[in-house]
């Protein structure tokens, strides 16, 4: 059914339609509305046969999820940012144990300095934990990806993280088509675990494994993700056949035919990028873009095919691998191995900074002219940065960087910014 709704609410409804049996909740902006939404559906009796558990931390949230999934219940939780890092040990553990938990990450920056707004540093920090990571471009795709995620996770017995940009998606009201329970039931079979703690068939799960077998266990985790490279498009195709719309898959291409320059990005920023591409195409530029939906497993071959005929690639990244540059760009370069293509990184939107069409067009045009640095920080205020560097050179006790920057930008009225942090 079509409705105008908040992204978080749409996801909550899609999750509920997937009939989770255990849901663990812990608040953190911008994910909170999702678990609140699921909780309300449980409390109202709309979502039946579901244990909704308010826990004391994200570490507990995912730990409870580990227990319930290992005991054979379809399990869901959601988090963001600091919360994802707080549960990091359990994130690796859930994957290591091969438990098909589905978790939403409402992508948000990581502090310090504490910041509640969107970027993708959080999920990037856990990219190698063994979870499948799917990035939604729109709220419709976010809702649809959750339904697909349960099927994928349970087919592989591998946890899946559905990443959606905080605020930009989670808090945006858009038109979303929410399927019916019958449609979802026909698409998503009941959970049949491959392993379950059960007195009827006792075995030990989570025993220590030494050097003799650890590599094999790890290889098999990698192998699961390689299988996911086939399953993700299959599931997306089946989804399209049943629900009549494209959602998910490994990647989406947009106007890449004959493009010399191709932009690659994850998540909602692809909407803005497409607008810029339309405008530049109108002006005769040969430019297109690829939205990578599956960041883990990373679709090396599919991306290589999509980028093959371009001369240069611009990766627009909402995260920074401090000390090297782009996370996405490194993976893109790997997909292009043995092909000579210029790959640029544009770090954009950190901590919620708006990514404007004008700024994007500017960097894309500079890329076309090969006048772009390897790593570019979109709209970086060099004046402020240089002033700080100069000050730090002169004064030993130069003080906290964040405070200094705020003072420099806002005079002594940094207070107005702090006010907005009340919702953390």
């Amino acid at each position, binding site marked *: 059914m079509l409705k105008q709704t908040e992204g978080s609410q749409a996801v909550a409804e899609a999750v509920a339609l997937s009939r989770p049996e255990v849901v663990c909740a812990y608040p953190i902006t911008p994910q909170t509305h999702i678990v609140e939404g699921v909780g309300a559906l449980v409390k109202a009796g709309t979502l039946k046969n579901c244990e909704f558990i308010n826990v004391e931390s994200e*570490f507990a949230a995912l730990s409870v999820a580990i*227990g319930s999934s290992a*005991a054979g219940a379809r399990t869901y939780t959601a988090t963001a940012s600091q919360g994802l890092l707080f549960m990091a040990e*359990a994130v690796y553990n859930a994957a290591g144990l091969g438990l098909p938990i589905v978790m939403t990450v409402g992508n948000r920056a990581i502090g310090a300095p504490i910041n509640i707004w969107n970027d993708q540093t959080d999920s990037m920090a856990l990219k190698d934990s063994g979870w499948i990571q799917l990035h939604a471009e729109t709220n419709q795709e976010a809702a649809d990806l959750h339904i697909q995620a349960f099927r994928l996770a349970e087919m592989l017995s591998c946890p899946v993280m559905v990443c959606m940009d905080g605020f930009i998606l989670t808090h945006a009201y858009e038109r979303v088509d929410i399927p019916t329970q019958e449609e979802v039931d026909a698409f998503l079979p009941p959970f049949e675990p491959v392993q379950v703690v059960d007195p009827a068939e*006792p075995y030990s799960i989570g025993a220590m494994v030494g050097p003799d*077998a650890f590599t094999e266990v790890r290889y098999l985790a990698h192998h699961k993700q390689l299988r996911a490279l086939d399953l993700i498009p299959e599931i997306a195709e089946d989804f399209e056949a049943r629900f009549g719309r494209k959602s998910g898959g490994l990647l989406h291409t947009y106007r890449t035919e004959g493009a010399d320059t191709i932009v690659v990005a994850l998540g909602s920023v692809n909407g803005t990028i497409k607008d810029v591409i339309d405008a530049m195409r109108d002006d005769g530029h040969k430019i297109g873009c690829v939205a990578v939906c599956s960041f883990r497993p990373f679709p090396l071959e599919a991306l290589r095919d999509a980028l093959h005929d371009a001369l240069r690639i611009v990766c627009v990244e909402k995260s920074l691998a401090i000390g090297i540059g782009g996370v996405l760009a490194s993976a893109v370069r790997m997909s292009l191995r043995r092909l000579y293509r210029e790959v640029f990184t544009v770090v954009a939107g950190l901590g919620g900074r708006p990514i404007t069409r004008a700024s994007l067009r500017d960097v894309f045009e500079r890329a076309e002219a090969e006048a772009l640095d390897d790593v570019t920080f979109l709209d970086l205020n060099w004046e402020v940065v240089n002033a700080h560097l100069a000050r730090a050179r002169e004064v030993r006790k130069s003080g906290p960087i964040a405070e200094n920057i705020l003072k420099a930008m806002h005079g002594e009225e940094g207070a107005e910014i702090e006010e907005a942090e009340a919702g953390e």
Partner: protein
Amino acid sequence: MTTDPAKTEPAVGAGAQQTAPQKVRFYQTGTHTVGNRLLDDAQRTVQASMDRSNAITSGHRACQGCGEALGARYALDAAMMATEGQLIAVNATGCLEVFTTPYPETSWQIPWLHSLFGNAPAVATGVAAALRVKGRDNVRVVAQGGDGGTVDIGFGCLSGMFERNDDVLYICYDNEAYMNTGVQRSSATPPAARTATTPALGDEPGNVFGTGKNLPLIAMAHNIPYVATASVADLHDLERKVTKAMGIHGARYIHIMVPCPLGWGAASNDTMKLARLAVQSGIFPLFEAEHGEVKAVQKIRRKVPVADYLKPQKRFAHLFKGEGDVARLAAIQRMADANIKRFGLLDGEDR
């Protein structure tokens, strides 16, 4: 261990229960360890029963005389008995986890799940939630960990499990230090004890006084239905408390003192003796509490001075050097006396 077929029952098919009677040889008849055939049936330990469950089979890699191995076996066998085998165990990282599951072997005859060091109570909550939602209310959950996994790193998750009154029995095997990593101080390490991080050096060797926490009392402050302390010194009492706990729903906590010969620098054959001295000196009071109120204590039959308990342990050797550390020995004695007074452990001393 599952490697020596001669020692175990033939593999049972899916659906069959591992509680099936296992032939037990009464090689320690006359001790408390396996059971005493001179006692009448009602008084015998679970271990003395021909159809005991044997939750942890022989062949694990614990040190000789390990109190934790002993405590865990009695506790889980009693829980198995109480639940007619419908039991799932969750284990925190630590000695018990490591010595029972040296890959690819396992000593566990029951479904067993290990996730992390600090999350066993939360994982158990999850297992219990799944069982509830599946309508399998007859299957019960025990979570267990060492003192470090319980009073330190797992404390947040434990408090959360208590506060929600989740249907989990949590058992702490307290050997008073992080043994699995080589005997480091935990917040259950007693004052003056030497550990790798509280060395017997300087003017006041060993762990400092005035620190640490008493988890049974903290558990009681959550108003959960049942809290008890137990000791391998009295295995009948331990089994009784576990059995009682399994008869109750909601969050339950049992704190078992388990001497560690390796960490304490004690002889392997002194485990039971030390456990008994800890109880008889008042250092480790045995009590039961319901909904935050102490309901029963085990009286001390013959009070012994704390020095009797401390002296056989190398971790306290510095207290007995030369003239002896009179002041600090007296301070420890005062702690024991305070316990005796607080819990009314001696007849004639009301609480």
